[in-house]
């Protein structure tokens, strides 16, 4: 039985690392829906971010043209935009910064909206700029679901609040509610 979504995209910036880890730890180890994480981070530093995010789950930085596969967790590689092609494969892009960021959450959300339509779920966490807000609204406009972390509970409220201000029907949830939502709807 297939759930409501075929992709979960999660974006976060300042203050999102801890809550992102909680979400990942709260999810079952075997999830059919692929999860794609876009995090703002330093661009030319070697990092072990995948391991930092979760000790239990294998989180991979995809290579260019890799097919998006069920049961996988992906993390946008540093210093690239992570885009999705119509055939549901990743495409990396090394173009200008968007919202001062590369990877830009807007870029990936917007691709998810275009490729997955109503079967996309976007989640925007804590952050100090407005990257991701426009993309989350595109997901909602395409019939998918957009969730913003409750700004009251976020370490930096600007990012989730911009999405709430920008368009209607953004679901505002706490981290526990986000975990429950994912588990019950996928």
């Amino acid at each position, binding site marked *: 039985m297939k759930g409501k979504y075929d992709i979960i995209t999660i974006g976060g910036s300042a203050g999102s690392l801890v809550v992102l880890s909680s979400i990942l730890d709260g999810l079952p180890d075997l999830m059919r829906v692929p999860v794609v994480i876009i995090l703002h981070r330093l661009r*030319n*530093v*070697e990092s072990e971010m995948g391991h930092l995010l979760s000790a239990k789950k294998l989180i991979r*930085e*995809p*290579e*260019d*043209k*890799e097919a998006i596969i069920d049961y996988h967790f992906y993390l946008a*590689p540093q*210093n*690239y935009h992570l*885009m*999705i*092609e*119509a055939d549901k494969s990743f*495409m*990396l*892009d*090394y*173009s*200008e910064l968007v919202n001062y960021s590369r990877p830009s959450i807007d870029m990936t959300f917007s*691709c998810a909206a*275009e490729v997955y339509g109503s079967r996309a779920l976007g989640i925007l966490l804590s952050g100090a700029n407005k990257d991701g807000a426009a993309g989350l609204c595109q997901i909602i406009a395409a019939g998918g679901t957009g969730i913003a972390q409750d700004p009251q509970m976020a370490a930096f409220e600007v990012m989730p609040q911009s999405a709430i201000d920008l368009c209607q029907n953004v679901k505002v949830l706490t981290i526990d509610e986000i975990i429950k939502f994912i588990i019950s709807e996928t």
Partner: protein
Amino acid sequence: MEHISDADFLDIINIVKLQYGYDFTGYVQASLKRRVLRFMGRTNILTLFDLKHQLVNNSDLFTQLVQYITVNVTEMFRDPPFYRTLREDVLPKLAAYPNIKIWHAGCATGEEVYSMAILLQETGLLNRTKLYASDLNPMNLERAAAGILPLDNMKDYTYNYIQSGGLADFSNYYTARYDNVIIKKELRTQINFFQHNLVTDTVFNEFQLICCRNVFIYFNRDLQSHVLNLFYDSLSPRGYLALGIKESMRIADVHGKFETVNGPHKIYRRKV
């Protein structure tokens, strides 16, 4: 405009190909469509009909379009560990050749080829190396040949340089004036900038090392395969090929022609 249909997209690509000789057929669509839309927004062209009409009739607009839809972003010493591997493992091997030829394919505004020139200078190889740097976009080449970069970027580049194992004072390699720097002349004299289109142009020389980083991400598999064959034919036996660190060589018909030298840093070698 929020969306370009496949049929319209194909029309645009065909106009550009027939009228101007640039072939974008093998480029991946997700990013190219987005850039065309952004170009239309920027130039205030409201419909695709308008865009096609103007492209047919106005070659200046095409020049602007090329500037806009090709990705011209680059950095000095991007991915510092890659440059460390070049410095420690690859350049010492190249030192065995009396004359070294290196090709930077898709050099954008030249930051990577200047990084290479610095490595060659520091390993004592620069004066017997010829660097060939090509791009399809003439405006990039003009900027690259001038060797002028924004001063603001130097802080990041210095950091990258140090991470890559550089020991010199990075500011020795440029002269700063107002908001810009110019790369020292001795680093520029061995570099030859010229126009070359990987899609339509062919082999023009034989190289011991080809760098083509973050270009393949814009190509579909067929075009990647075509260009890998072009590189194979342009390399001397056992010559090196460096791709971007997230680009892969998993393409059936050429995979067997190369061996992996450094997997994570995507350095390969032509088999004999």
